[in-house]
């Protein structure tokens, strides 16, 4: 049995027509100016795909191109065509169409968050504290100003923290609370992974008459630190970026922006989960301190009234769960 092919000599763009046949584990190439015998083990054959012609690279650098549709079956059987079989199988492709979204969802919603949770305890405390120092340096330069609270007020708040920190059962023992003024952030509080918690003057002003509410906010922030949410966010966004790069592959031009917005929705959903976790931590601590858990709801309501109201679409795209659901959660914890 023989097959026709085009034969290109090594390094040459000239070709000649040849006949191929297989005999006792050897490929015989014969044409007007060629007569070669090559052991089958020394051939490099392109794996079969769609109806692309088979190409055979010879050890000397020569190339054989078979006409479309014809192939040396003796060679093919030696060459696993499982992938090609799957790609040509309608049923396998429909199954893939079902499995791709399922697996994708599984990885994004379950796999990556679990991985993030398990990786984060591996980060040493010294690294986290160095993050705190550097972030505070950048923030102080860019969007924070020294607090304008007077010495006495600061002292009073500090004593309150100290008292409650002493009573908490904490994983980390290096918490510090800092006061800053921030026109750009407004009434706000945030926590850094090393245990630095920043409260803005604006927030204290907003919640002035309600020590319980301030405590609720701080408990919420401590919850972020205790659960290592900062590290989890880093791990999660890294994993999502890698996933998108290699699964979706070469999205061209603008389509890339589309995959980018998908990534940020995924990340915001993840961050909403973390906020909920910090809320439940705060509620648990409030209960331990015999403070009504509605204090958290009060604080959230006051803050949200201070910020802009969000509608349904924005809620979905936001990094925080809706205020209504969080207030409800705090009240029901009663």
């Amino acid at each position, binding site marked *: 049995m023989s097959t026709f092919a085009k034969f*290109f000599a090594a390094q040459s763009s000239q070709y000649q027509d040849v006949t191929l046949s297989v005999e006792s584990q050897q490929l015989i190439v014969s044409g007007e100016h060629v007569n070669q015998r090559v052991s089958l083990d020394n051939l490099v054959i392109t794996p079969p795909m*769609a109806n692309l012609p088979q190409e055979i690279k010879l050890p000397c650098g020569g190339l054989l191109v078979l006409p479309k549709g014809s192939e040396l079956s003796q060679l093919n059987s030696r060459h696993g065509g499982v992938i090609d079989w799957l790609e040509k199988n309608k049923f*396998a492709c429909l199954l893939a169409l079902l499995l*791709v979204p399922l697996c994708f969802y599984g990885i994004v919603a379950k796999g990556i968050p679990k991985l993030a949770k398990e990786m984060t305890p591996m980060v040493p405390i010294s690294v986290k504290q160095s993050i705190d120092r550097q972030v505070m340096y950048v923030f102080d330069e860019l969007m924070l100003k020294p607090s304008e609270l007077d010495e006495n007020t600061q002292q009073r708040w500090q004593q309150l923290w100290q008292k409650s920190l002493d009573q908490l059962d904490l994983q980390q023992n290096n918490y510090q609370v800092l006061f800053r003024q921030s026109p750009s952030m407004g009434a706000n509080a945030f926590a850094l992974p090393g245990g630095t918690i920043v409260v803005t003057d604006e927030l204290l002003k907003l919640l002035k008459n309600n020590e319980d509410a301030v405590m609720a906010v701080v408990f919420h922030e401590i919850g972020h630190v205790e659960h290592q949410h900062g590290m989890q966010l880093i791990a999660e966004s*890294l994993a999502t970026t*890698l996933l998108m790069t290699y699964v979706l*592959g070469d999205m061209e031009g603008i389509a890339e922006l589309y995959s980018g917005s998908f990534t940020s929705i995924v990340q915001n959903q993840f961050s909403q989960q973390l906020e909920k976790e910090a809320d439940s931590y705060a509620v648990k601590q409030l209960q331990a301190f015999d403070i009504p858990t509605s204090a958290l709801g009060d604080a959230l309501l006051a803050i949200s009234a201070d910020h802009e109201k969000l*509608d349904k*679409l924005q809620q979905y795209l936001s990094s925080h769960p809706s205020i209504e659901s969080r207030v409800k959660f705090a009240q029901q914890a009663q």
Partner: protein
Amino acid sequence: MEDNNPPKAANTFVPVSFSFSGKTGEYWQIWIVNVLLTIVTLGIYSAWAKVRNERYFYGNTELDGHRFSYLATPIQILKGRIIAVILFVSYYLLSSFSPVAGLVLMLILLFAFPFLICASLRFNLRMSSYRNVRFDFKGQYGEALLNFLVLPVASLFTFYLLLPWVLKRIDNFLISNSYYGDRQFKPELETGQYYFASFLTVIAMIFAVMTFGFALGLAGIAMPTPEAIEQGSVSSAILPYVILVIYFLVFTVVSAVYTTMIRNHMFRQTELDEVAKFDSSFSIGSLAWLNLSNLAIVIFSLGFALPWAKIRKARYVVGRTEVQLNENKENVIDNIAEQSNALGEEVANIFDVDVALT
């Protein structure tokens, strides 16, 4: 050995057939199977998937009765990919853990950028072959640094007046350093064309922005009255998304102006040394429509019709490209150095360093 005086064939160039035979259904099946395998192997199979995807497009592109071949092996890609991922993860973690180190790394990356462009082009061209002869890229770091970094920055200080000239230099750098076997691609680009194309692009942009602004004003979305928001008749939340969509529309249409003019010019003005001449017949309307409809296809199918968009693009590009070959085509020799690795290409890929001739 080297054939230094080929029979000086009469310099007649003959148009040859150039076609793309990829089919949407067939490619979709290949694509979906490869995406699934990539996911279930947690990304490891992506190297094999890349090779299969590339092979499909190369192998279905036929010039003068011969197909193109993609030569990279999955293992080659995988090795580069593993190192690239390690580098990227280190970069990401280091810049998250220390903003200061992040800034330093960004600076290093900036200077690595011209190197990555060259390495990536070199790999991709060396892995491309036609008639058993490979392509190559011989651009060097120094010249790349000048063209991709120094001159663009310098053009900022001229209020972008130098930018069209810089863009011409970049295209010239990319084409004239490309080789098919022992033959060099020789461009004769005209600076005037780049200024003309840039000028029309700016005009198109102004025109597009004004048109959309006017349309929005008519629709009353641009300036919703406070009462309208109060009554909930106009959602203020929708506005940013409307603007985003308009931005995409404007960008797609306007970029089609530049791409069309410059690509047509580049192809007409480039000759593969005594072997091939080229022509390109992109048109602004058809290219803008292709890109817009492809974007819609990808978005509304949630990404699952990406293969359709890619096949449409390939058909358009090949269908509007003309190649004329000389008798000399038989005399091209592959004299390209053997070693090449995928590291530069893979690092460029993950850090999103992307350079392509339009």
